[in-house]
């Protein structure tokens, strides 16, 4: 699918370019802007980004694949991230992770067929003091339990 930055995105990109002495340095912020607009980083997004920043598409690909938070495929509307690193593991993170898998019928990095939910097992999110935790899109849910997670998912299911 073709990809073009919207006028709004282009404005944001111009603001970002002012912060760095090179165009390439704006790559990460521009990818964030692209992901916000497009939902994920497609080949077309990478081509367009490379064009705007005057760098090789290979370099863009190299950066996109280096980071976990740039999505290489479309994810669900509600992207559920479960931290299973040790501090969360001590407090039941794997039970929660398994519970979410079962409830949604998907595995790590999969999306439900209605595209509502996707799941990702993530590393420490910096919430170890409030473990266990999950994040949904940009929001943290700390000090949770399997029951609370179920409730959150059910509420999201209802809310279209």
């Amino acid at each position: 699918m073709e990809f073009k930055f919207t006028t709004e995105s282009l404005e944001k990109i111009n603001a970002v370019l002012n912060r760095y002495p090179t165009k390439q340095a704006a790559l990460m912020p521009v990818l964030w802007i692209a992901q916000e607009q497009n939902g994920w980083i497609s080949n077309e997004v990478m081509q367009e980004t490379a064009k705007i920043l005057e760098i090789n598409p290979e370099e863009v690909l190299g950066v996109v694949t280096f980071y976990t938070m740039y999505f290489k495929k479309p994810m669900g509307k509600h992207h559920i991230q479960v931290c299973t690193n040790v501090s969360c593991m001590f407090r039941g993170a794997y039970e929660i992770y398994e519970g979410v898998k079962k409830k949604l019928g998907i595995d790590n990095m999969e999306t439900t067929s209605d595209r509502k939910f996707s799941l990702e097992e993530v590393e420490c999110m910096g919430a170890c003091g409030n473990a266990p935790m999950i994040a949904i899109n940009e929001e943290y849910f700390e000090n949770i339990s399997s029951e609370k997670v179920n409730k959150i998912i059910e509420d999201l299911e209802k809310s279209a």
Partner: protein
Amino acid sequence: MEKIVLPEIKDMHLIDVYLANGGYSSVKKAFNQTPDDIIDQVKKSGLRGRGGAAFSAGLKWSFMPKSTTKPKYLCVNGDESEPGSFKDRQILEHNPHQLIEGILITCYAIGAKIAYVYIRGEYHKFINFFSKALNDAYEHGFVGDAMREKFGTDFTCQIYIHKGAGAYICGEESSLMNSIEGKRAYPRVKPPFPAQYGLWGCPTTINNVETITNVPPIIANGWEWFAKIGEPKHPGTILFGVSGHVNKPGVYELPTGTLLTELIYNYAGGVPGNKKILCVIPGGSSMPPLRGDQLEEIKMDAESLKAAGSAIGTGGVMVMDEDTDLVKVLTRITKFYYHESCGQCTPCREGTGWMLKILNRILSGSGSSNDLDLLISVANNIEGNTVCALGDAAAWPVKYMIERFRDYFETRVNTVTKLPIANKVHSLRKSVIPL
């Protein structure tokens, strides 16, 4: 006890409250002195980095070349991805202006006109908190071109937020710089050090968020005041993040030299069910684990922890009670480093994978004593043989946990292999990843 980094003042994150409590007066004071004076004071204060290596902040600043035609930069490290660490986010949320003021003083001291604050991408909320504070500081003229008028100085400085995108390695300082430059975040070989060859080849200083937040009070109250707090060789307070099997996990700001047992039992409320402690990792998952029966008298500062066979790291204290499965813990920790290795060096890329495979074998019940020796040998072959310290970070937990808990691991490899075949299959199915 006085709090330096997270003072107990309501709504301190608001610029008006910060100003009412003397905010932005340290930077004014600093501008009336020479940059060298500032570096000298910070050096004498004994402030050491809070990002892991506990290196003298003033000394690091003094490495920045005085005469250079190149621009200089400050990078503020808010990547905070070390498992067990969750303290910098407290500053971003509750005391962002003190961080901003610290950045201004640091930039003045080292002669940097641009500071990049690198914050991990997962911290959307904390980026927003900090960004709000930063906008307010700009609007009040404390940051940016308006500083000339506000402070009546020639020195101006811009502060920009750079948002990460999910890679632990970006916390490593040279990787962080490549990440800001828009490249794959591979760590660089050192030397040259960042003060010589940093961002875009220009002189650069990298400091942790908490380190920088300590600077304004040092300028305000004098280095003598700071040097007297806590342990003389590592003065000040530390934001200790306690997690795992404790009743009151959370962040506690305490003077360096506080007893580990005091931190766990008095502040973090002890272990649920009054269970015994099997193991403690005192400074984030990269640091060598300590035995629970050897915690008495261990003080929480860089020198004491070194003497005790570990390190202060990020001050992230992970507590494990007597029922914890250490094989599982070590496997999970190793899985993390395997996942986060950038793949540049063979010992790190391959070694973390091998260690994970062997640990999974032990976890599944088919491990042997030889595997324990094999793990230590792989760890030894990673340690010291890589471009960056992630290699060491992956090797230490394996090496030291097995060495220090050899008895524990021996029973694990022995008892499990003695189980009848049926049980073996069962335990295999249950416990091979996911843990």
